[in-house]
């Protein structure tokens, strides 16, 4: 228990001290939120709705980014720098290490959500009911699991540069085609048809539904669950192959 706590504390410190985390997970989403709800919102018919909707988009964007980029890259770095090997010479169980990483990640995701929600409240005076805030926050944390698994898959890559490039493309691609950056409805129809099957769209859609007074659809949940299982199975397979030397 003590080692779990110490390790989690260390992981949290490491993530918070990473300038990329602060930039991508906090500064960027808040800046985007400001730009797209205060500066470029001229022709939005129901502004209040849009402000709540886009707040959800940005919170999802932030947490997805932390999971895919920070988590995945960190895994690659630790391996290439030999850090994972060092840890394997210590009595720290691998499971505790993995658990503390997950725990730290979850806690920081929660922190990002609170900060971004608060900024939405401060910037635009977004008002949702207490249960809506809570449900949206919970959804964004829990439904981020497929992205953590995707991060884990990126974490199997051999080189930091490759992992960095690929995770950037995935992150941006998923964010844009999933409608996290701009409204899904203004995208070409063909893109929308593909986008509906992406984890990012279903992730965002759950939060949007909650903000609009509904709840995440069963289809979204199933699709996200499918991605979670797929990513976990693939990375399990890749890891096994890498270890079989």
């Amino acid at each position, binding site marked *: 228990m003590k080692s779990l706590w110490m*390790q989690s504390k260390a992981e949290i*410190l490491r993530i918070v001290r990473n300038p990329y985390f602060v930039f991508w997970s906090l500064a960027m989403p808040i800046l985007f939120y400001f730009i797209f709800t205060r500066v470029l919102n001229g022709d939005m018919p129901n502004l209040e709705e849009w402000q709540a909707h886009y707040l959800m988009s940005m919170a999802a964007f932030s947490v997805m980014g932390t999971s895919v980029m920070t988590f995945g890259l960190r895994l690659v770095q*630790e391996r290439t720098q*030999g850090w994972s*090997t060092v840890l394997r010479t210590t009595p720290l169980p691998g499971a505790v290490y993995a658990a503390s990483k997950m725990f730290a990640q979850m806690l920081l995701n929660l922190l990002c959500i609170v900060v971004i929600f608060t900024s939405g409240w401060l910037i635009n005076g977004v008002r949702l009911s207490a249960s809506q805030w809570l449900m949206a926050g919970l959804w964004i944390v829990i439904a981020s699991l497929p992205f953590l698994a995707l991060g884990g898959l990126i974490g199997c890559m051999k080189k930091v540069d490759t992992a960095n490039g690929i995770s950037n493309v995935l992150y941006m691609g998923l964010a844009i085609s999933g409608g996290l950056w701009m409204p899904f409805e203004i995208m070409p129809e063909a893109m929308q048809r593909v986008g509906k099957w992406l984890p990012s769209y279903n992730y965002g859609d759950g939060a949007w539904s909650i903000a609009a007074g509904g709840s995440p659809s069963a289809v979204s949940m199933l699709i996200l669950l499918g991605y979670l299982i797929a990513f976990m199975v693939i990375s399990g397979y890749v890891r096994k192959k890498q270890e079989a030397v």
Partner: protein
Amino acid sequence: MTTVIELKNVSKTFRGKKAVDGVSFAIEKGTITALLGPNGAGKTTTMSMMLGLLQPSEGALSLLGGAPGDRRTRDRIGAMLQEVAVMDGLKARELIDLFRSYYSRPADRDYLIKLSGLSPSDLNRSGQKMSGGQRRSLGFALAMAGNPDVLFFDEPTVGLDTTARRRFWDEVRQLAKQGKTVLFSTHYLEEADSEADRILLFDQGKIAADGTPDEIKRALVKRSVSFLPETADADWQKRTAGLLGMRLENEAEVTESNGRIIVTAEDTDAVLRILIESGLGIRDIRVDVGRLDAAFEQLTRNHGTNAQIDTREAI
């Protein structure tokens, strides 16, 4: 004396290449042992198997009476690997505390801080911003975090200046005196010679020699006795070989160069004695000892290049 580490016929094959080939040895408590050899000789692979980072393809290893890689075993060992990685985003002081939390009976914090040789301001710096030497010193402190019984150092002094190197070895000596067992790998003969009680000489995945530094030196260095025969008539080369063959325990090689008969043998004292006692007409007797570094270099150069296997990738 208790045996702390034991390897029985251990081999490791990477993609059909044998990086370690049938290695056996036992290490006693409180000793300092050097794994000496050129790059690619199998030192790091052997050490990785002792640490439980790699599984042997064949053979058995035991460490502190248990299996390497076992949690209880790991609680009692410390390791400093070739590439000293320092976790990013954590200060040296935090790393020391973190590592202490991994072990059931951690070493004293102040002792570890002293061991790292870092100043109070450096202790508050992140590992990434340290010099290679400082990182290595920190790595040493981290290896000691669990107050281990057995210590593994893979090329520990690469990148250290003379003072830091001296300090490191003085500390290691102290640890061995306290009953800790130390294993280190190096490709510097000098270092193995001056710091180790015992040298395991690795060559192409096998142990080419095993003994005290003096014994290893004796095995590596060619010693010879040479003389000029008084008469040029008889076949001296054959005669000498016959004479020595009867009375010498180990084999001797007899050659001739410019009329001088050269006997290359391990025990040159015995050769001398036999030659004198035989009453042969010989003069201008010389005893020559080859140069140690030259002999080691030759061994290294012969095989060093073709046995390179990147074990780090495999880990």
